[in-house]
Structure formats: C-alpha cells, structure tokens
C-alpha cells in the first residue's frame, strides 16, 4: 500500500509531528508533507523546558529538533501559528484557522496534550502558569530567581523538576499535593518517599493531602495561595502541574474512536485507513501488557512517529520497545522502564542512602517495570528483561554483589 507520492498532512508540530516528518523523509517518502502547528516556532524538545533550559543550561537553538532551514531543504511545508478546526474524512480535507483548508492522502494527528486546568477562583490571575510550551517556560523562568517564591500545585514530575530548577536559581519553592504523597499516580511509595526527602534536603517545602481553595491576587497578579483549611501562603508565582488531557476533540468530532486518547493500532492507524495518530494524544496498544494505554513521553512519540512513517512508506516497522521515561532533578537521574501493571511484588536493589538504587516491580518472576535512580545498569538490563519476559530470581535481583548482567543471564 506504500505510495511514495502521497500527500501527508501532519496536525501538530511537536516532538511527534516533527519527528514523523523527519522519518518520512528519512525512509524515502517523496510526496508533499504539510506540517501544521499552532505554536509560533518549529518543532522542539519539551523535556528540557523544566530541566536544563529552565536553569539556563540550554538555549532555543539546542531545543530545536531541526534547524529552520531543514524544512525548506526537505520540502516540508511547515505552517506555524495555524490551528486545525475540523477534519472532513469524506473529502479528506482539514479546515484551518485563521483561514484556508488543506487536503490529504494521509492524515497524521499529533495534537498532543494540554495542561489540566484548576477549577478554582483566581486560576486566571497573572503569574499563574503551566508548563507545556517554550512560551510557558519563558514565563516561568522570568518568575524565578533569588528571593522569589514559587508555589507549585501538583507533586508530579513537572512540579518536582520545576522545584529543583527553582532551587538551583535561588528561589523558594513549595509543592502542594492533594494526595498523601508526591508522585502518587506514577511511582511507588518508596520512590515517593525518597524524592520527597531529597527535595526537602534541598530546601523544597511540602504541603501534602492539601487542596487549594483559591488563588488570591493584587492588581490582577497572584500573591497568595489559600488552602482548603484556610491557611494562606504568600507567593510571587504559581505553577499548576496537575496532569494533562489529550487534544482529541478534532478526531472525536470527525467520528474517530477516542477513549482517553485517539484509539490506534500498532501502525498508529485509526479505524480510518487514511488517518493516523501519534504521541501524547493516542490511546495505543501495549502488547507487552496486553492492553491499550495513553503514554506521555518522548520515546513513545518517537516510536509512533516511526510506526506511521513505516506504514506510509513500506519501510520495516520499528522493533517493539518497552515504554520508558526519565527525569533529572539535582544530581539525580531517574530512569523508568515499563509500567507496573498487575505487579504483585517489589524488589529493592542498591543503596537508597547513597542515592543509587532501583526498584523492580514483578509479576510472579517477570519484571514488569523498573524505577532506577542513578542506576543505569539496573535500568538498561531491567528494560531488556521487561521486553524479553525472562524469569528472574528475586533473591539474586536484590543482591547488588551479583552484577545485573549475571542476574539477567
């Protein structure tokens, strides 16, 4: 079915959309590629926004996926500041805003996810921020510095990374989390405890099991966070990091199946053979875990960008991968492989006090996931064990005097 001359339209110029365009060309696609993004800048990497970039260790050109000249040189029609309004699958046309329309032979929806909003009074005050885009990061950076007070609502990865960066820049930081522990939805209890202790030692403050009643300001600018118990905390800025929602409305309105994300197969294809979806916006198969799931990660965006480019060009499909994630905070490198679905036990390997350890999540004698802190061998071999489903001995896994290579042998 590969058609090297087909016209491909990509909605969304993020990591997934930009990479799909690049892989299409890399795999020899000759037809027109139209890449449509609502942000004013060409595709860039988002992960550094809360880490190296926020601390001033990366600049805009190092964030860019490709140099600006790449798009013209590779006949990729990059249209920035443009939003898709609707998809007509019968006529294979996408209506655009501010104006115009574009037709396609293949459509790739890569519209990503947006920050969940807090439904509380004051959420629209100046200085209340989210962190998804370069513009968001620019605003946050402007609010940080010695003596500034940053209140972070949500103890997930974005909140923790922003807190670490805020501390590096000399700002006071507070994390307010509704659950009794940070990282409650994405990490196990031991890891939550470790990260909270580490952040506390670096001067980050925590309010756990705490809801926010309102944000209060002066002259349109946020100045205080009011907690549910009516305690009031002064601040200069608020970062809201309480999760993301898939931008699936375009697909849903076009009659495509959505279930917390656009439902796709392992070629990243929807039920319409001409329409694909990739990245944070998809609800995708995870064959390792025999289920569909929505992932928010760069490796997922890249894997699906390869899947769709392979499907369109007839290139060999990418090798199956275990989902994986990473986070940098202070001198901690957290690497996570797999997802602990149906895990029934945990094995801790290494030394938590030395900030060098890994937590393995097992289902029977198979590794479902590993959370590794400054422990690349555990991460790399853990990822391999997740993929090859090889049984391991819990006793050997827990014994760091036996190398990971031997444990996995």
């Amino acid at each position: 079915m590969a058609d090297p001359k087909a016209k491909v339209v990509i909605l969304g110029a993020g990591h997934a959309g930009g990479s799909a365009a690049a892989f299409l060309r890399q795999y020899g696609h000759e037809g027109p590629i139209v890449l449509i993004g609502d942000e004013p800048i060409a595709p860039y990497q988002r992960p550094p926004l809360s880490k190296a970039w926020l601390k001033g260790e990366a600049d805009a050109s190092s964030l860019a996926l490709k140099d600006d000249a790449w798009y013209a040189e590779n006949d990729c029609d990059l249209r920035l500041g443009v939003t898709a309004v609707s998809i007509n699958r019968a006529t294979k046309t996408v209506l655009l805003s501010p104006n115009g329309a574009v037709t396609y032979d293949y459509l790739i929806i890569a519209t990503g996810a947006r920050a969940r909003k807090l439904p509380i009074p004051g959420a629209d005050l100046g200085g209340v921020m989210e962190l998804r885009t370069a513009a968001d990061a620019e605003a946050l950076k402007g609010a940080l510095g010695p003596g500034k007070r940053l209140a972070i609502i949500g103890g997930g990865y974005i909140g923790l990374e922003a807190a670490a960066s805020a501390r590096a820049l000399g700002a006071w930081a507070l994390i307010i989390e509704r659950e009794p522990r940070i990282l409650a939805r994405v990490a196990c209890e031991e890891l939550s405890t470790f990260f909270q202790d580490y952040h506390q030692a670096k001067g980050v403050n925590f309010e756990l099991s705490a809801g926010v009643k309102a944000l209060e300001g002066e002259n349109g600018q946020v100045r205080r966070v009011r907690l549910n118990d009516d305690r009031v905390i002064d601040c200069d800025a608020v970062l809201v990091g309480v999760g993301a929602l898939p931008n699936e409305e375009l697909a849903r309105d076009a009659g495509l199946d959505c279930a917390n994300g656009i439902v796709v197969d392992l070629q990243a294809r929807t039920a319409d053979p001409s329409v694909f979806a990739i990245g944070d916006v998809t609800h995708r198969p995870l064959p390792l875990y025999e289920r569909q799931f929505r992932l928010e990660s760069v490796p997922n965006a890249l894997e699906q960008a390869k899947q769709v480019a392979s499907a369109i060009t007839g290139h060999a499909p990418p090798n199956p991968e275990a989902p994986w994630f990473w986070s940098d905070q202070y001198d901690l490198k957290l690497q996570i492989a797999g997802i602990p679905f149906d895990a029934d036990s945990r094995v801790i390997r290494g030394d938590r006090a030395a900030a060098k350890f890994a937590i393995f999540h097992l289902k029977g004698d198979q590794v479902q996931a590993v959370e590794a802190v400054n422990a690349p061998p555990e991460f790399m071999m853990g990822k391999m064990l997740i993929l090859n489903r090889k049984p391991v001995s819990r006793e050997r896994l827990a014994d760091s005097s036996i190398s990971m290579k031997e444990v996995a042998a």
Partner: protein
Amino acid sequence: MAKITYIEHDGTEHTVDVKTGLSVMEGAIKNNIPGIDADCGGACACATCHVYVDEAWASKTGEKSAMEESMLDFAENVEPSSRLSCQIKVTDDLEGLTVRMPESQH
C-alpha cells in the same frame, strides 16, 4: 564549525557542518542522518546515539563520564571505541571527525 562524517552501518556516508557547541548527536539529528536515534535528546539516559570513534580522535573527543561508561556497558555491539555521541561536544578541533554507527541502536 566542524565538518563531521557520519558513516551508517551499511557504509553510507554523510558529511555535514556542525556548529561548535552542539553535540555530535545533535549534528546528526539536525541533519536527519539515519542511524542515531537519540530518544532522550541528549540527557545520557538511553544509549540510542551510540557511535564508534576512531582511535586517532580519542584524545580530542574527551573522556567518558562514569554515567556514559555505565550506559554504554549495556548497549549492543559495544567496542573499546564506543561513545555516546550526545556526550561529545563539537569544537573546532573536531574538524574532519569521522564516526561510524552500530548495526542498531535498540
């Protein structure tokens, strides 16, 4: 600026100019050179930008950090000349550098 030649596993050569200050990995990604995946964007977290650097260039490309060493230890097809290209910063001294790619990054 340095001229760097990237050689794919099948022998295909790509010679491009890479700006000083970028990494050897970024030079490949920005020029859409196949064979270097760089899933983590240069955070030394994934070992998917593995290359072989000729012995002659070893002193100019610098020492491997403990983290890089540790990540490489678990990559496929590792040789003594293996490096993670995200950890090699491009300087004028690297004019003419040639790196070769392994069969696969995953």
